[in-house]
């Protein structure tokens, strides 16, 4: 009996997060830091939105933050027929210590979330490509 090769993970859209080779390692968000004023941004940008200086350095943001607000969505996820089998899914805004506020899908049950709680970034498989690759997106989960 042969073991099936590990599925390759591909981003839902390139340029937003890292996909570590080791699935146990958390992903990071691809952000920018203004060389002039130090403001952080997600996603990456060339012109600083705060001081309008040109030139930002690429930085990795996360993988931890605090839950600013959240909701539980009862209607289907885009591109899916049901909301995780009808149970729904969480969506939230997470404040990173670097500054940016990130909107993302949350993993966990409705009873798991509370404003202000610590959150950690992870990757979720949205679907499979015809080639068998896993299409992934970043999401946050409550971190203990």
């Amino acid at each position, binding site marked *: 009996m042969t073991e099936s090769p590990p599925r390759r993970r591909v981003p839902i859209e390139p340029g*937003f997060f890292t996909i570590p080779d080791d699935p146990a390692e958390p992903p990071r968000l691809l952000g920018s830091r203004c060389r002039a004023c130090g403001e952080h941004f997600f996603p990456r940008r060339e012109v600083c939105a705060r001081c309008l200086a040109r030139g930002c350095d690429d930085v990795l943001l996360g993988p931890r933050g605090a839950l*600013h607000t959240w*909701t539980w969505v009862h209607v289907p996820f*885009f591109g899916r027929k049901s909301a995780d089998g009808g149970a729904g899914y969480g969506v939230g805004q997470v404040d990173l210590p670097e500054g940016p506020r*990130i909107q993302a899908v949350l993993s966990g049950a409705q009873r798991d979330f509370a404003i202000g709680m610590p959150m950690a970034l992870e990757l979720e498989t949205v679907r499979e490509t015809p080639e068998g690759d896993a299409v992934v*997106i970043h999401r946050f989960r409550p971190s203990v």
Partner: protein
Amino acid sequence: MKLENVAVLGVGQVRFGVHRAKSALELARDAGLLALADAGLDLRGVGEAFVGYIQPAPMVGIKAMKELGLTGLPVTHVENASATGLVAFREAAHAVASGRAPVALALGFDKMSEMARGGQGGRGIGRDSIDSVILPAAYFALWAMRRMHERGTKPEHFAKIAAKNWNHGALCPVADRQADHRVTPEEVLASAKIAEPLTAMMACPADDGAACAILATPEWVRKLHPGRPLVRVLASALQTETYTPGHTFVGPVVGPSTMSRDTANEAYRDAGLGPEDVDLALCHDAFANEELEYYELLGFCPEGEGEKLLEAGETALGGRIPFNTDGGLIARGHPGGPTGLAMVHEVVHQLRGEAGDRQVEGARTALAHLVGGGSVCTVNLFEGVS
């Protein structure tokens, strides 16, 4: 800038709803013909047109205008998401104010029911992109949940706003939702949940529709309609976001709330008015919790006192500042491109004293507000002069 020299010559609106039997161009034509009839003109009398639609097909605006005639007039397409109709209106107002066109037309149309079903491939819908995975309802729900956390707002408050707008809509002949009974907050709360704490009856429908407004100098309007109350456009402000730390760039559906406050302040300053002068207001109530926020952001009560204003019934017909007298996005409907022009349609009927059972007694000044894509806001002020 203060608009000194612009008035509404005519308005027209097709009732919003799902129009399977009519194409977007036919809906646009019907709204355009209604507005031209109200104005007492045909297309030869129009100097310039601005056409607003959200659907992605190119040149559709020009095609829609051809349904009204081919007179060589300049036509420009305007798109600013949900704010599209009022932004097309703003361009028409400035075309008249600048003297470039003595008569200018703003036409909006869309078939959101097809976009929602994926038929026209609305931008970001059903596609693989970082922006598209979260529904608009979720973004507005995030705002509602944060307010509940900060202010102790209850889902019952949002339900009361939605029920009010459903009941206003039942009095408006061009509203999509015309309930055959008085809608209660309990009924709104018991409807299907979309995203906590929002229910289906707190959300706008995905509509089809078209609406049109024709603007001209006050002299021209008086000449064509000497007996009719004149509806002047006093201000039309448009702003985008200003950066504040923590700004959310991905999935911009709600945007910073300061944008509505700043845009309203600009419009009030331009018009030389304050919120205390306004007799009725129409706002972007795609979801009921937004209306509560706009009570405060548009200056009708101090921050944190929206619930009090609502509980006192001041924002219902008969109250001090009735909001969304035609049912708002929730009941009149929200097809996208024409939504802002439906607001102008309602404002004009109110200020002419032609709003029937939903008439705001003695209405003289009206405000119309929309946000679009969380990234733009427009606030417009009107005055009726008998």
